[in-house]
């Protein structure tokens, strides 16, 4: 019995090591989607320059499956996913709405979209993170999949890659459309 006690530190260390190994697979910054299965938060955003006719509000999401993409002209990773969003738009696969987040200069977002292409159906301006905080966003880009009844079905953190699209988003979109 007493001899066994001397093995306790070893056992403790092994357990700790197991947790650390597991820890390598986890991302401490990736927060869970608190809105999963819930209504999108209420928001009503002003238009960005150059799209002065219409802003973007939560009511616009009613009636169709859509993606809500939080982006900013300052965000490097957004430029990574941008060509892919353009491709989705060109093939008319699903409407993508944009929330232009935290632009220091109100011209920067519109300027970027004008230069590199605009994949968004509707865009709202969110300079003070009102909508971003309501969605529980920590960084750009983040993308929310919203169904026709404005219920949030999925959150993707980071750029949308072809793999993410093929394996997760597109199957989910098709499934939601069937319902």
């Amino acid at each position: 019995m007493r001899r066994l006690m001397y093995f306790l530190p070893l056992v403790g260390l092994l357990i700790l090591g197991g947790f650390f190994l597991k820890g390598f697979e986890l991302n401490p910054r990736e927060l869970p989607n608190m809105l999963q299965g819930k209504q999108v938060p209420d928001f009503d955003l002003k238009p960005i320059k150059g799209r002065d006719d219409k802003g973007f509000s939560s009511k616009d999401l009613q009636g169709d499956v859509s993606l809500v993409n939080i982006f900013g002209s300052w965000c490097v990773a957004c430029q990574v996913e941008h060509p892919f969003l353009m491709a989705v738009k060109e093939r008319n696969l699903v409407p993508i709405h944009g929330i232009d987040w935290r632009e220091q200069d109100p011209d920067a977002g519109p300027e970027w979209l004008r230069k590199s292409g605009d994949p968004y159906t509707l865009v709202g301006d969110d300079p003070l993170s009102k909508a971003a905080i309501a969605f529980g966003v920590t960084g750009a880009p983040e993308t929310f999949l919203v169904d026709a009844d404005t219920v949030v079905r999925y959150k993707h953190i980071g750029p949308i890659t072809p793999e993410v699209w093929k394996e997760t988003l597109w199957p989910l979109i098709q499934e939601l459309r069937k319902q």
Partner: protein
Amino acid sequence: MKTLLVTLLMALTALPVLAVEPSEMLKDPAKEARAREVSIALRCVVCQNQSIDDSNAQLARDMRILVRERIEAGDSNQEVLDYMVSRYGDFVLLEPPVKGTTYALWFGPLVIVGLGVVAVVAFYRRRLRAVAAGGGGTQAASVPLSDDEEKRLAALMEDAES
């Protein structure tokens, strides 16, 4: 690797300098004090282990402004905290709530102290038993000194004396 890169890119927004700006502060000192209290309890979600009160990350600033707007609109401190938790989860609270997933955290220290006390008590009792049984006692080393070591020891003692 890709996720790491993204994490790094997303992390670049954090700067550990100057936090609350005078322009954000509420006119009413009582409400401002409440806003500070709430801000200190909320974690800046992009800068790891800083409260939004301490951080000048932009998101932290926007959260501070939101906290103040909600307090102005008549929310209680708890309601503001609840709102933030409904968006970011328990992660946003620097003081984790006491609930199923955190019992081990909050009661763990009691268990650790308890185990320590039990171990020490067991140590004393075992030693007492050993004495009662005539063992234990005061023998020192498990290996006695060799002749060679005795000589070295004697030499050292002389060294120390002189």
